[in-house]
């Protein structure tokens, strides 16, 4: 929090701190990469051992028999997938090219820039513009997303566990109640939430509040419980005989959750974590309403929208917006690529047989 306040001191300090932070983030990413790679090696060994008796290497459906008809079908699929990939990736290629364009800041009629430059990125982080303090926005968003993703994942998984595994009075009613509650548009209560968080009640946001993004975090955390469906669906597919075995051995419910269910649920943990991270990371509606006014406490979504909201701004800032877009996308991209394998890791397949 103090470092955040320091950033508004002077240009020199801002640059110094951004360099330090940049180095720290780089080191952190390097460390994460190192550990992930190291883990991978270990995990791979285990998987190999496991497959020996769970028959994982056996193909599920025997459609890869070598016959000309199948080869033709596969070629068609490859062509289709190639077209799909091109359509899906094209806008981001355009984004990256635009962010590297040096000759004009506006929208131009060609894609590949005539002059490559990194000026747009430098401009974002140098803090030269008091109207667009991008670094502040970025750090705000990072803080909100990290805190919210951790807390929300815990809440979601625990709620899903309670509703999937435990049978208590009012369980069905609670599920129905949350279902009904979730049918109201979340923005409906916003005026009221604004008042509750505002200067007349809690004083977290509004005029002169020191740390309005804390209010935003609360808003993101408040409704999480209702998003238990997917995790509950996942827990429902984990065999209950595991629980029963552990209970016979004298494990408590808490112990079962933390030492049996959680280790089996990596895919859903990762999925929930990513969802809870990317939600606040890209949210516009709530953030725009809660963080009105102060330019320094904005998140990237509202800040970057203000960079290109009018024709005038667009002509001045489009390439900078693109650079910002690339910077904002890097973290989620890195997270997705490293955690992607959890999506495809079958967990329950071999844990209990027959």
């Amino acid at each position: 929090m103090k470092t955040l306040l320091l950033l508004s001191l002077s240009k020199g300090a801002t640059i110094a701190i951004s360099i330090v932070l940049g180095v720290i983030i780089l080191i952190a990413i390097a460390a994460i990469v190192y550990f992930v790679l190291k883990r991978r090696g270990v995990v791979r060994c285990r998987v190999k051992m496991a497959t020996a008796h769970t028959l994982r290497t056996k193909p599920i459906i025997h459609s890869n028999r070598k016959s000309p008809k199948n080869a033709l079908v596969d070629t068609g699929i490859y062509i289709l997938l190639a077209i799909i990939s091109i359509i899906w990736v094209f806008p981001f290629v355009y984004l990256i090219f635009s962010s590297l364009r040096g000759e004009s800041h506006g929208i131009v009629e060609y894609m590949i820039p005539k002059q490559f430059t990194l000026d747009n990125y430098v401009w974002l982080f140098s803090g030269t513009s008091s109207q667009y303090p991008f670094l502040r926005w970025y750090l705000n968003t990072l803080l909100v997303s990290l805190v919210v993703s951790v807390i929300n994942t815990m809440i979601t998984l625990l709620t899903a566990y309670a509703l999937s595994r435990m049978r208590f009075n009012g369980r069905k009613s609670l599920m129905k109640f949350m279902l009904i509650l979730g049918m109201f548009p979340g923005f409906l209560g916003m005026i009221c939430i604004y008042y509750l968080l505002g200067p007349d009640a809690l004083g977290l946001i509004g005029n002169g509040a020191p740390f309005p993004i804390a209010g935003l975090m609360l808003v993101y955390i408040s409704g999480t419980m209702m998003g238990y469906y997917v995790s509950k669906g996942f827990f429902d597919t984990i065999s209950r005989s595991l629980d029963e075995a552990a209970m016979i051995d004298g494990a408590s419910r808490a112990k079962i959750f933390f030492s049996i269910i959680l280790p089996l649920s990596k895919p859903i943990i990762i999925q929930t974590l990513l969802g809870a991270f990317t939600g606040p990371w890209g949210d516009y509606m709530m953030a725009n309403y809660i963080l009105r006014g102060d330019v320094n406490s904005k998140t990237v979504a509202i800040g970057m929208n203000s960079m290109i909201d009018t024709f005038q701004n667009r002509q001045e800032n489009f390439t900078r917006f693109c650079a910002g877009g690339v910077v904002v996308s890097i973290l989620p991209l890195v997270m997705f690529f490293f955690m992607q394998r959890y999506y495809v890791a079958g967990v329950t397949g071999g844990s209990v047989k027959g």
Partner: protein
Amino acid sequence: MRKISSLEYLSMSKATRAWYKFCSFFANLPVAIGRWFRNLPKLFGRLFGKIGAWFENVFDAFRFGNWKTRLSALIWGFGCFAYRQIGRGILYLGYEIIFVLFMVFFGAQYLGKLGTLGTVETHEDPTTGFMIVGENSFSILLYSMLTIIVLIFTVVMLFKSIKDAYSNQLGYSIAQRAATMKDDVGQLLNHKFHLTILAFPSLTLAVFTIVPLLFMILVAFTNYNSLHLPPRRLFSWVGFDNFSAVLAGNAKGLSGAQDAGRWSYTFWHILGWTLEWAVLATVTNLFIGMIVALLINKKSIKLKKFWRVCLVTVVAVPQFISFLLVKQMLLDNGIINTMLVKIGLEPVQWLTKSTSLARLVIVLVNIWVGVPFTVLTCTGILMNIPEDLYEAAKIDGANPIKMFSKITLPYMMFILGPSLINTFVGNINNFNIIFLLTGGSSGNVNSQMQATAGDVDLLITWLYKLTVNDSQYDVASVLGILIFIVVAFFSLIVYSRIGSVKNEEDFQ
């Protein structure tokens, strides 16, 4: 619709059967809805029966309990102190003291004014010329809601205190000891683990979701709009005026009274487009996503990781960047039109030419953004299907198509089912794509509509505009409630048809 025999049904081809099921679903819809309403009294009867049983329990405890039990209705936790449950007793007593203080210094004053929502407006004192701060309808309504919720919770706690004391009394007469604090804490990690888990989320849910929602539901019955803004002015109860204005066009209480009928025209118009959009967006994403996922996960396809990476890019890049970027690409002088001109075609005004073209483009952009999510989810599910199912099917001689329709598809729908209705609701409330891509309007003004709404606005973006730009909170609340009714209607239909809600214990 003609009822057919099972023999006739079996003799139909697959496609006819599907069509028959589809038709009979809609033909039976009125009957099903009627049945649902007929069952409503039974539902309420059961609910009240439960509440009644609960009261009866407490009454029994009071009647058969000794003096210690009875006293604990007045001094909470007395029944705990008497049986040496000090920790629990302190919690009860502490809650009682806090509750009394809360009611005396805070709750009572607001609760008393709930009927009128305040009578003293902020005004200038005629003799001294000072401004006198009047009552604030907003805080009266809000804090009354809060107090009512605290009251309900207190009644629950009171009953629990009595029942606790009674069970202590019973338990003590048998075992000569009551549960200690240590037992209680141990229970919170074992058989009552759900209480530990759900306490904090429920609290935030109550304060920041339930209270605001109840508040806004009540606002729909007041005239809280730009003409009656607290703290300067008071607002008051108006009954169903707002609903009749939005649904039927009797705009008597609203600030825009001169254009009666516009509100309702705008509402029905936007509702139509919202439903059209939600169905289109959900169906296209589900089917295209499922097909792409099956293609990528087909055993003989190589480079699985590469294809997935291409799609994951879209998931990983924040949506607001995608939408703002695509908006720039679709501009009149944007990159897509430039490319069209280069290959010799006419440029198209994608988002501003006409309402229907703008809508089509929105659906297409949504496919671009939404399909990768479905693909990722489906991939996760496909990888999670227990392989012994396939092994068993293979031994029984099933072909791949049979295995797909009997194992893969049911399994996918089992997990996707609940999230499907979530997606549908999410699409009805899909703010980002409409607002960031078009701002709610394609620039083609529909003169019959309220000026606050654009032609591609969804209900949620209209609600947003009414709240943020126009301070029409009363109509916004009505809209919110109507959105809820729409969503609830579709959810009920779907939930009564999806197995995963009914048969929770399947796939174990």
